């Protein structure tokens, strides 16, 4: 097979992987600080995707322009969710948290089914069929914009955690819960903020994702599972790990399709997960827990 085919597939895999990474980043942030596994993560992404589809179909607003507003909506949704519903479950056993979030996921899927129906809906931007040719490389314009938007949003998120006081406080909560309480941090509020930031990540990822794939309500559980694979492969709680995991899964899916059979793309993503769990249980960039 010619070299340019591998090159094109690799670029497409990396660009898709960046969006996967942004989606998984939200899951990683929430788990890393709040220690709650969001089993409604993919379902929250579909809410953002439907918001993007509705805004495009009714007002012709490009999903890339709507990225920040939709992330803000999901931020508010995440904050309210954590403060009102999840917070009482923080100290409860893990299976209670699991049931709560699975139930939330089911409610989201079925509400979307009632409102939008089961059929796929898409966003047909003016650049939906465009591609850029650079020598042998042909890059899908939608994927390129999606990848660039994912990088920008991720960079902003990293800056938030590194450079702002709130970001530093959230990291302090993640590092030492008791210490955070001792120095007088409002941990409840910070937990709600963290969940909101995670929800904003998934909101941005969902908005960007509409450029690449069509949305259906049933997409949620698939992407919750994908986010888990990425986060576990990259390292649970590690932000750079989520990004690396996303790119790894994007590339794996792409090369499995080209080197083996396209029907087995998902199988190879799971194979990566099994290998990581066997040989590096803490994930590629995760820290080993003593």
């Amino acid at each position, binding site marked *: 097979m010619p070299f340019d085919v591998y090159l094109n597939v690799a670029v497409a895999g990396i660009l898709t992987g960046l969006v996967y990474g942004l989606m998984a980043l939200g899951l990683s942030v929430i788990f890393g600080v709040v220690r709650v596994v969001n089993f409604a993560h993919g379902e929250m992404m579909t809410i953002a995707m439907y918001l993007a589809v509705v805004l495009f179909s009714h007002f012709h607003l490009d999903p890339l322009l709507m990225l920040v507003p939709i992330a803000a909506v999901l931020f508010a949704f995440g904050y309210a969710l954590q403060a009102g519903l999840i917070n009482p479950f923080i100290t409860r056993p893990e299976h209670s948290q699991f049931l709560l979030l699975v139930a939330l996921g089911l409610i989201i899927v079925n509400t979307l089914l009632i409102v939008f129906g*089961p*059929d796929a809906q898409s966003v047909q931007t003016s650049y939906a*069929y465009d*591609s850029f040719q650079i020598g042998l490389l042909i890059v899908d314009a939608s994927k390129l914009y999606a990848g660039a938007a994912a990088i920008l949003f991720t960079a902003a998120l990293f800056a938030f955690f590194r450079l702002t006081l709130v970001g530093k406080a959230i990291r302090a909560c993640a590092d030492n819960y008791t210490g955070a309480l001792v120095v007088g941090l409002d941990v409840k509020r910070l937990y709600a903020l963290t969940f909101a930031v995670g929800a904003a990540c998934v909101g941005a990822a969902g908005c960007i994702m509409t450029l690449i794939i*069509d949305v259906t309500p049933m997409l949620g559980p698939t992407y919750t599972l994908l986010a888990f694979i990425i986060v576990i492969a990259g390292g649970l709680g590690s932000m750079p790990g989520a990004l690396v995991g996303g790119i790894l899964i994007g590339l794996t899916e*792409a090369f499995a399709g*080209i080197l083996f059979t*396209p029907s087995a793309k998902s199988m190879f993503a799971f194979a990566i997960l099994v290998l990581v769990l066997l040989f590096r249980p803490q994930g590629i960039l995760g820290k080993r827990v003593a």
Partner: protein
Amino acid sequence: MTPTNMPIRLMPSRRAMLKGSAAVAAAVAVPAVLRAQGAALKVGVLLPRSGFEAGIGQDCQRGVDVAPGLLKSLGLPALTILDGDTESNVDTARARAEKLINDGAQLLVGAFDSGQSAAIAQVAEQKGIPFVINIAAAPDITEQGYKFVFRNFPTAPMILSDAFANQLELFNIVGAAPKTVVFMHVNDTFGTAMSKGINAVMPKFNIPYKIVEEIAYDPAARDLSVEVAKAKSANADALLVVSRLNDAMLLTRELVKQRWTPQAIMSMGPGWYEDQYLKTLGKLSDGPISFVPFQDPNKKVAKMLEAALAKSSPGVNLSTNHVYTFEALLIAADAYKRAGSADPKALADAIRATNITDNVSIGPGIQFNAKGQNDKLKDGAIQNRAGKLLTLAPKQAANAKPEWPMKPYQARG
């Protein structure tokens, strides 16, 4: 003996009793027959009205919508349609078939998809309710020895034989032919059956091209960029496809983005000639040639169906989905008329004896062999051009010359 001195018999004689019983039996039976002929037959129509095949299921529904008026004008009894949604899912199809039978359906029609139709066939056979398949090509369905399952749609080998014959006819007309093709197909029941069929049937024809790469993919896939990249890398002259609607649109989008216009796209399944495909993709929908079961535009009932569809769904091209869904209901109404009863066995016997020559599809008409298969159907070669479907072959049904090779996607403005 005068009436006054007649012996009074309080009890009727045995003969009178027999006569009376016969009269009562006749009185009960005659209205039953009249009821059967007067009341509408309850037909459960199972289609993928939602899910990834929803577009095609809804297109099939258009064939159902025009049926009442047409059946009436053909002098056939009315049908009461009970809708069922398979949700493009085999398990749901099975459950919905059971529900429709429990709700009183006396005959089932459906279900567009081979896997779903096979599941419904099992239920119909188990419950003893006739099932007329509108569209499903996997040959196994009518190879099970079922007594209540009938199919007025060609099997995968029949589609392929006609497709190859029509391809040879086209290559002769244009004086050119591809030397190599990439074969892309869905990996569901239908796609796998077609893939096996191609390998079995192709050697029987003197086909000038070679399949250099075969790519199977998930019909519910949301991104086919890798699949198209792999196909493009084979550097083949043409693309041979067996697909559905959503994936046909995804494939076209990727062909445009990856800047590959093959000499021809030859489809041996649905998707590429569907109305939604034409409307969604506009100019990008032009060019693909579908080798599919189709209508004979010269038949009287085909013209009636086309006119009825133009009235009920303006701007929609008459095509396979409407034709075979309507014909399934035509078979049901015709059998009900001849059976004079809604009794499932009588209906099944009447369907088995069907002989409709005034129909819509290409071929001599509708008859079923001992397996419940109409084995006399013929396919056509159809090309999309400016939002219309033009018939290129067979010669007797053709109304246009082929456009060959396809106009490059990038040159379509």
